[in-house]
């Protein structure tokens, strides 16, 4: 019996991203039941359910339980597709179709077991790293190929190809959709956390830009992280450390660009615009992260984020503590980019001369050759010590390296300051 439009939840009661998140839950649930070899079938059933909602709800209104409705339709469709599939195969092979276990009729639960199991499949170490990200967004995230391509500035055909190859590999290697046992969960979890961290960073660097899908990756990484943190199997310190790191960084997003979309330096940001609720959640995850005996890079990066979050302004920030955190990070994850960040913190803690000295040591590192932040940091420090000409040369160098439009505008503004130092 169809419900009249006036009966169901109204427009604004459709939770934001309800379809995207439900799609992820439904694909995970159905694929876990059908087996990873039939991932395509699960995806087809879910897509059909969404199209059915589109051709029904405009006339009947939104059902009282939209998620339950979608899941029921997707499940029924999966059963139909499975019968067709089994029939075709029995004809081809001349064998009787195997009897299938009865389908699950309840909508996915709050613990997110299905999504968790699916994340472990998508991030399986046997799959190429680039495929892990695309698969996670497609199956657990409910993103379309087009949206994934937009988020990663790639061609949709390339993403589609990557997914096809990954699914073939999943079938051939019989990678199952399950939560790993306690003995192997540690190593498998690292690979999942890597993917979430990558998603978050992609979104963070694009936030405030014109590419909305890209910026949405931050929220998606946090959402998936919360599924991990909320499930007893993965309620582990490293998970909470990554969540703390993402939430603390995300708290600064509203202040990170000005009203025209231009990037603002930490010192220029209005700290009142930092999201206090996210900082609170971040700090509480950081506390839960402290329970283990293993310190991960996420712990250290979250500690850096927390040091910024609890400071009233840039001047009263405990920069010496931040330098020590970067020293820890260099031991866990040595990289020229971490060296660069440490040098910038060192300049704040001990003055621009110390920063310049540290930056000059890594200036010739080929890994940073295309990285605009290195000459930009040197430009800033030379400006601080009162050498605007030298600073200008570095900003010009920074502008010659690959940058986004807001980053470019930021560098051009800085360059203009070098040329009229009185207003600096």
């Amino acid at each position: 019996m169809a419900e009249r439009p006036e009966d169901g939840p109204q427009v604004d009661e459709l939770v934001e991203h309800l379809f995207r998140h439900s799609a992820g839950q439904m694909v995970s649930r159905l694929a876990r039941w059908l087996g990873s070899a039939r991932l395509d079938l699960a995806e087809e059933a879910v897509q059909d359910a969404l199209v059915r909602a589109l051709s029904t709800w405009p006339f009947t209104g939104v059902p009282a339980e939209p998620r339950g409705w979608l899941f029921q339709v997707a499940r029924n469709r999966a059963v139909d597709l499975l019968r067709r599939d089994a029939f075709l195969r029995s004809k081809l092979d001349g064998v009787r179709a195997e009897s299938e276990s009865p389908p699950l009729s309840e909508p996915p639960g709050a613990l997110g077991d299905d999504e968790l199991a699916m994340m472990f499949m998508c991030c399986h170490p046997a799959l190429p790293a680039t495929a892990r990200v695309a698969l996670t967004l497609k199956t657990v995230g409910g993103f379309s190929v087009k949206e994934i391509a937009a988020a990663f500035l790639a061609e949709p055909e390339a993403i589609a190809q990557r997914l096809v190859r990954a699914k073939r590999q999943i079938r051939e290697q019989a990678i199952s959709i399950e939560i790993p046992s306690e003995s192997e969960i540690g190593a498998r979890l690292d690979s999942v956390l890597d993917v979430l961290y990558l998603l978050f960073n992609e979104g963070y660097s694009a936030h405030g830009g014109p590419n909305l899908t890209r910026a949405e990756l931050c929220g998606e990484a946090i959402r998936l992280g919360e599924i991990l943190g909320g499930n007893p199997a993965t309620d582990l310190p490293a998970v909470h450390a990554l969540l703390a790191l993402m939430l603390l960084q995300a708290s600064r997003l509203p202040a990170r660009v000005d009203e025209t979309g231009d990037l603002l330096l930490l010192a220029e940001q209005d700290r009142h615009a930092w999201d206090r609720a996210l900082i609170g959640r971040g700090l509480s995850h950081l506390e839960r992260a402290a329970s283990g005996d293993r310190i991960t890079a996420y712990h250290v990066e979250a500690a850096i984020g927390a040091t910024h979050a609890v400071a009233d302004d840039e001047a009263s920030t405990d920069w010496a503590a931040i330098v020590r955190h970067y020293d820890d990070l260099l031991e866990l994850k040595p990289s020229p980019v971490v060296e660069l960040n440490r040098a910038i913190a060192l300049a704040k803690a001990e003055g621009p001369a110390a920063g310049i000295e540290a930056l000059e040591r890594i200036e010739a590192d080929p890994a940073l050759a295309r990285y605009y932040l290195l000459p930009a940091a040197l430009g800033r420090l030379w400006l601080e010590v009162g050498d605007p000409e030298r600073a200008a040369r570095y900003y010009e160098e920074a502008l010659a390296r690959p940058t986004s439009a807001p980053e470019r505008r930021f560098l051009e503004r800085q360059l203009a300051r070098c040329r009229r130092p009185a207003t600096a």
Partner: protein
Amino acid sequence: MAKYLVIARSSGMPSTLSPQEVQKVIQKYMSWNANLRKDGRMLHSEKLRAGEGRVLRGQAGKMVVTDGPYVESKEVVGGFWLVEAKSYDEVLGMLSNHPHLDGPGILEVREIEDLSHLG
């Protein structure tokens, strides 16, 4: 006030939309519906089952039944809304921002003839 039947033919959207896009399109239909309901102009609506119509004809005094609708897919009726308006012009105004017209969908409007004055 007169009553108008608004018939939606063919689907409004391709089936390759992402979950997020499907939700956005549904929300557009919902807010169109909500606007009309708010003004008390939406009287009724129904979705019709796809591909299960029957077409009846008399042939030499006998009823002949064929499956229908059997013409092009753009003829398939997805559902209808019964709305109230002062004139065709007003109905057309109400439909000018209708989400069904964002895609390949077609809307047909028919006024229900009011014969009450004939007693």
